């Protein structure tokens, strides 16, 4: 099995020539005419044997084409509305790009520093990642909010030499929101990780079936690659302890939240067994340490020599080490490094500074950062833009252990419980709430203790993240960013419309709206619903039910592990008894919100 690297191997599968499809080919702009806009580079691909670097931009939907030797942008091509991933195919002439906003997979032709969209196909909404397997003849796309994998075949067109076309081969629904994927170069199986929590699935892309689903003791899995020898899987993730508290001590000594690089043995991954068996033969390494933590580990890249780079999104740094588990050298790059690609000769590493509109270039041997490649001019940042930078910055916390993102992943929730001072005391851990749509659902915290969102922001920074007191401007910016967060659009549910209608009927008949009132599906008061926490609190503010189908643990302490359990096992509220049919329908309705 050829070891895969982040730059898809230059295999020798001769695919047919270029296809002249009538697609939206847009003219390449010359460097002098680069537009003033936010780009957000989130994925990198290296082509031309290392001479050219392509960056996929999440905000502008463009591909930036960079001359690696001169370290300048030579062209920028708008190909979509907002790109989230980019992968070079083994033939060296095609790439796959994912347009998250449009919900499409794009086939891009590359030649001589210019690109052309050769094909588009609609995939499941909110696609985030793509992997190419089987020498580039099949692609798997992970769509986060729709919890679905889409399988796309890349077939040569007839007549021979007429190029490739994209064809949907099928899909697979997953019981979690997928994001990162890793594939063996040969093809099967594909490993798919949870976007928020710790679920890890092994999927057969040919049978389009789930081979196994287990849970890692992890959350925020943001980097996942196979080692060059294919025997281990490296996973970058965080760990949040439910037993620790957000006291200064527990944060300081790394008890509350930690940042890790985990090594899993592929053998343990592929062998069926319980969750704990996943860890057999593996190792867990700490990233960062007391006094200098490594908040939000993300993309991983491994060179052929075994050197490892882990992007530390919250620290604006990368950690570079000579081998897995060896001491890491921390190198400052740009803001929120979200992708790393190592040149084929192993000399340089390119880092996409997603919030800076730049690519940092690092010399592997020395760890020096020789230059930054600007992808284009940037406009003035708005308050919400600045808030976003703060939201993802671990420097807001003591020693850099965590950022807001660490618990409120992408503005949502990591699905875990945390013992904060949100309820006024320690000893009663509570589910991390989702912040999507948070601005319209005051008062805040499970016990409705905060009347102002900006006060809650300040309290979180001081008493959860144990950071220094933020300025009023910072608090205002963060609040502006939160106000801009919207829940994912409804309608990604899969239930039949009849069930949803019946479920709405149950919702009305049982007066759920008295606490969960549309359109936000919450009310500003606290209610006793027959639940109590360890501190004796009995009244809770109802969380908004928008996007409730995208959460994985319910009620204040997460005791219900599925929406079904909320009614079938916990009989929420106050001992409510529903028939199994009613529960099915109600769940279908809730999942449609």
């Amino acid at each position: 099995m050829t070891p895969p690297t982040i730059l898809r191997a230059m295999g020798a599968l001769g695919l047919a020539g270029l296809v002249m499809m009538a697609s939206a080919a847009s003219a390449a702009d010359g460097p002098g005419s680069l537009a003033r806009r936010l780009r957000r580079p989130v994925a990198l691909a290296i082509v031309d044997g290392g001479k050219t670097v392509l960056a996929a931009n999440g905000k502008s939907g463009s591909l930036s084409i960079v001359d690696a030797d001169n370290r300048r942008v030579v062209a920028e091509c708008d190909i979509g509305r907002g790109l989230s991933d980019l992968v070079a195919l083994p033939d060296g002439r095609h790439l796959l790009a994912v347009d998250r906003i449009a919900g499409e997979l794009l086939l891009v032709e590359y030649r001589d520093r210019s690109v052309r969209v050769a094909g588009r196909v609609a995939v499941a909404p909110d696609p985030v990642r793509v992997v190419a397997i089987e020498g580039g003849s099949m692609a798997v796309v992970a769509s986060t909010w729709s919890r679905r994998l889409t399988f796309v075949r890349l077939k040569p067109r007839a007549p021979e030499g007429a190029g490739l076309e994209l064809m949907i081969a099928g899909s697979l629904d997953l019981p979690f929101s997928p994001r990162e994927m890793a594939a063996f170069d040969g093809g099967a199986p594909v490993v798919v990780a949870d976007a928020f929590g710790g679920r890890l699935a092994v999927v057969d892309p040919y049978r389009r079936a789930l081979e196994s689903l287990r849970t890692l003791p992890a959350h925020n899995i943001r980097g996942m690659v196979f080692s060059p020898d294919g025997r281990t899987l490296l996973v970058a993730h965080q760990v949040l302890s439910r037993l620790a508290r957000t006291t200064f001590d527990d944060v300081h000594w790394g008890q509350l939240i930690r940042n890790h690089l985990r090594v899993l043995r592929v053998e343990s991954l592929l062998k069926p067994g319980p969750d704990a068996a996943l860890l057999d033969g593996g190792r867990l390494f700490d990233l960062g340490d007391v006094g200098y933590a490594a908040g939000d580990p993300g993309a991983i890249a491994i060179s052929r020599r075994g050197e490892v780079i882990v992007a530390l999104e919250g620290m604006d740094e990368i950690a570079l080490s000579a081998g897995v588990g060896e001491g890491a050298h921390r190198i400052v790059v740009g803001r929120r490094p979200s992708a790393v690609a190592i040149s084929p000769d192993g000399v340089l590493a390119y880092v996409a500074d997603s919030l800076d509109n730049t690519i940092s270039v690092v010399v592997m041997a020395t760890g020096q950062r020789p230059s930054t490649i600007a992808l284009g001019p940037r406009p003035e940042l708005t308050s919400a833009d600045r808030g976003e930078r703060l939201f993802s910055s671990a420097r807001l916390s003591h020693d850099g252990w965590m950022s807001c993102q660490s618990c409120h992943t992408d503005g949502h929730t990591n699905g875990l419980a945390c013992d904060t001072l949100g309820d006024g005391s320690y000893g009663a851990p509570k589910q991390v709430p989702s912040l999507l749509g948070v601005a319209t659902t005051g008062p805040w915290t499970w016990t409705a203790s905060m009347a102002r969102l900006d006060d809650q922001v300040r309290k979180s920074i001081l008493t959860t993240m144990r950071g220094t007191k933020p300025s009023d401007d910072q608090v205002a910016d963060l609040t502006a960013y939160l106000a801009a967060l919207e829940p994912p659009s409804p309608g990604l549910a899969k239930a039949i419309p009849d069930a949803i209608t019946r479920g709405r009927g149950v919702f009305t008949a049982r007066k759920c709206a008295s606490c969960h009132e549309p359109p936000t599906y919450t009310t500003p008061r606290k209610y006793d619903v027959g639940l109590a926490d360890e501190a004796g609190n009995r009244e809770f503010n109802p969380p908004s039910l928008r996007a409730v189908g995208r959460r994985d643990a319910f009620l204040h302490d997460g005791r219900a592990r599925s929406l079904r359990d909320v009614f079938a096992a916990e009989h929420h509220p106050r001992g409510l008894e529903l028939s199994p049919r009613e529960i099915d329908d109600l769940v279908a309705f809730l999942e449609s919100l």
Partner: protein
Amino acid sequence: MGGVMMRCAANALLGLFALCVVPAAGADDTSMKGRTSVASISVPAMPAGFARRVQAITDAVLEHHVDPPVRQQMVLSGIKSLYRAAGVAEPLGLGRKVSAITTVEQLDGLLRDVWPRAASRPLRAQTLEEALFEGLLADVSGGAEVMTAREARVAEQMAGNRYVGLQIALRMDEKAGPVMAEIFPGGPAGRAGIAADTVIEAIDGTSTRGLSLREVVDRLRGDEGTEVTLLLRGPKDAASRTIRLRREALARTTITGIRENKPGDWQLRLDGPEPIGYLRITELTGSTPHELRRLAGRMESLGLRALVLDLRYLSQDRGESAHSAVLLADSLLERGTIGRIRTAKGVTTYQADADALFRGWPIAVLVDTVTSGSAEWLAAVLQDNHRAVVVGRPTRGGGKATRSDSASLGRILRRGVPNAAPRQADSRTAVEAAMRTIVLVGDGPMALSMVTGILESGGGRGPGAGTANAPSSGRGVLPDRPLPASAGQLLSSTGPSGRRLTRDEMKARSIEFNTLFINEAVAVLRKALQTP
């Protein structure tokens, strides 16, 4: 680790007896018990808001203590303590008066009524206030102390192994004043070469004469990175000298290996052919779980595959280490019930998070008769979950009190705990340990340190007889692999013939005693390593 409130142990106040007798203003002679005092010195008036503070403290105890006494009982003890401090006899009928109190207004009236009007020695209002608080808390089981917000912060720093200061221990000398009793090496004072028994004559320009130990400590403390100027006179110095020191945060190492090859460089592998590591926990503080994690990584890199975890020397716990013990237990268990905690609000069961250190390694835990408190609980938890084999002698059971005038934890347990869940029907008894936290009194600034919870293991071994030399109190941990009964004789100061042993002989026997533990543990681990 020890109360923070450093009270003036030596009474620096000399009894000044007034030469003339001043009749106590407003004193009701018929209410005084026994003889009137020979001399009467006027007493400062009751401080403003005093009753509110007393009420707030008793409120805090009632709300948070795991098994609080009755409020009126606390008030009565407090008033008695007040009179003791004043050095005058308490009036008759106090019990009746206190029993009638239900509101804070009534409390205020009572306190004004019983506030002593005369004393046998000059007193400051603060001293009386402190005396009353001390009495108030005397009946709170496990011991409780009032502290200022600043002292509370320092206590938390110490429990969290982030102590900020000069890294010295102080004592108060009757003649010389505050003396640096011990200088910790590596700290700011140690690096400055200050000798033990150096007298502190002035702090930041102000003389220390007349200051209580507590006041001296207060002035020496400050934020990390700030400086303090001291006027010192060493034991061998002819004259005083001025020195400036910077306050630092120093973390003690709380886990060591088997042998310190170089300062700070501990050998983690036991001598012998087997890949067995050894760690001794010397203190359970906020940093201990972190240290264990780092050492686990190192031991894995060394290729070790089994662990001896020595808990024998953990005997000083007043309850501050309960949280660290819970986190440690969690880090060693990858599944199962860690234990329960009872608080004023009820009982919570802790489950272990998935993932653990030393996965797949057999573990032997060493305990001895002095192992107590949270360490005892930790051993019980590991034993209950079959995660470790316990080797050694039966533990103390019930925790150890470090204040002779406060109830031992044993009393908490015998008295029973409110809202207790019924114990399981089987004969195993749980091992218990106190959890002490610092709670804000009202909205501050005072804080109160007291036992707010009791950790319970899932169910220890039954109340056993222990061994003849080490009787178990019935609530301790019984080792799976006890030392031979004759082991305890090695600690005796007389030999088998009755002759008194020399110091060298005793030292050799002590080493032999220690080796017994290690050998038993290695035997257990060797066997476990051999089985696939």
